[in-house]
């Protein structure tokens, strides 16, 4: 009888350890959020969004940083470098050239963006990482329209 109890307790303990290891493994390796499939937390217009950051950076950062933003505006230009493709909503001129919203596209959507002529009204969805005193940055962006 005593032996049977030992086996049950031992079995439970082993199962517990395996479960703990599995949870640890999946939490440790949990995937990055797929922003192209995420529902936007905010839907904004490019100029108003940028002005919000410029006039009150702290409050806007608290509100938008880390959130999924769907931004609509007139595409000013597309910046292509070796490493990334960026959609630009250029809104003003500052000390360091144009200022506005920079949307870094996910590689799968880069070609689509390049085919859109500047001046077109587009909606881009991405993860807002903040305002660096010249631009507001959105990353992991996809094109909604």
């Amino acid at each position, binding site marked *: 009888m005593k032996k049977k109890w030992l086996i049950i307790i031992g079995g439970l303990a082993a199962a517990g350890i395996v479960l703990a290891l599995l949870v640890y493994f999946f*939490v440790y390796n949990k995937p990055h959020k797929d922003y192209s499939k995420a529902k936007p937390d905010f839907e904004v217009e490019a100029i108003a969004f940028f002005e919000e950051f410029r006039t009150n950076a702290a409050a806007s950062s608290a509100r938008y940083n*880390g959130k999924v933003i769907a931004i609509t505006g007139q595409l000013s230009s597309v910046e292509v470098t070796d*490493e*990334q493709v960026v959609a630009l909503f250029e809104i003003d001129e500052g000390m*360091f*050239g144009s200022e506005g919203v*920079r949307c870094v596209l996910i590689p799968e959507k880069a070609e689509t963006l390049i085919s859109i002529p500047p001046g077109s009204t587009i909606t881009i969805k991405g993860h807002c*990482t*903040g*305002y660096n005193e010249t631009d507001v940055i959105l990353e992991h962006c996809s094109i909604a329209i």
Partner: protein
Amino acid sequence: MKILSTLILLVALALGSAQAQKFITKSGNIRFFSSTPIEDILAHNRQVNSALDQQTGDFVFRVLMKSFQFEKALMQEHFNENYVESDKFPNATFTGKVTNIKDIDFAKNGVYNAIVEGDLTIKGVTKKISEKGTFEVKDGKVIGKSTFNVLVEDYGIKIPGAVAKNIAKSIQIDVDVNLEKLE
């Protein structure tokens, strides 16, 4: 009248040359690397703002903490929420000078050694740093590179005991900015 037009010309020239003195990027690279026997952690930020004034040597960086990409989502979460508190301190900044700016010939291709001194602010804590780097002048562009280390405790970053062995006390920072003349 002649004096006036000469003055206007001089002012225009001065403004013109003042315009041409800056080199900037909005897509600079900063990587950091933590290495311990237990694990290596690498994060990469490709959205770094940087500007260099070729005349005065003024050199500035603006770095959004949330733009650092980690291999593992969990590490990125811990970094933002626990270590650098990026909701409270969204930017890291550097404001300083290239002290030997006169040694760099922006008109001549080549690799020049640079000494950069100034204030590095991470998580609201500002420290004076002085680091070595290089500027490569290449057909009117300037590629700035530097590798240096920062101690996490200098910037008030506390690593909890449970993961203290996973995260290095001294983090290697690699800076790589491709600066272009501001037109």
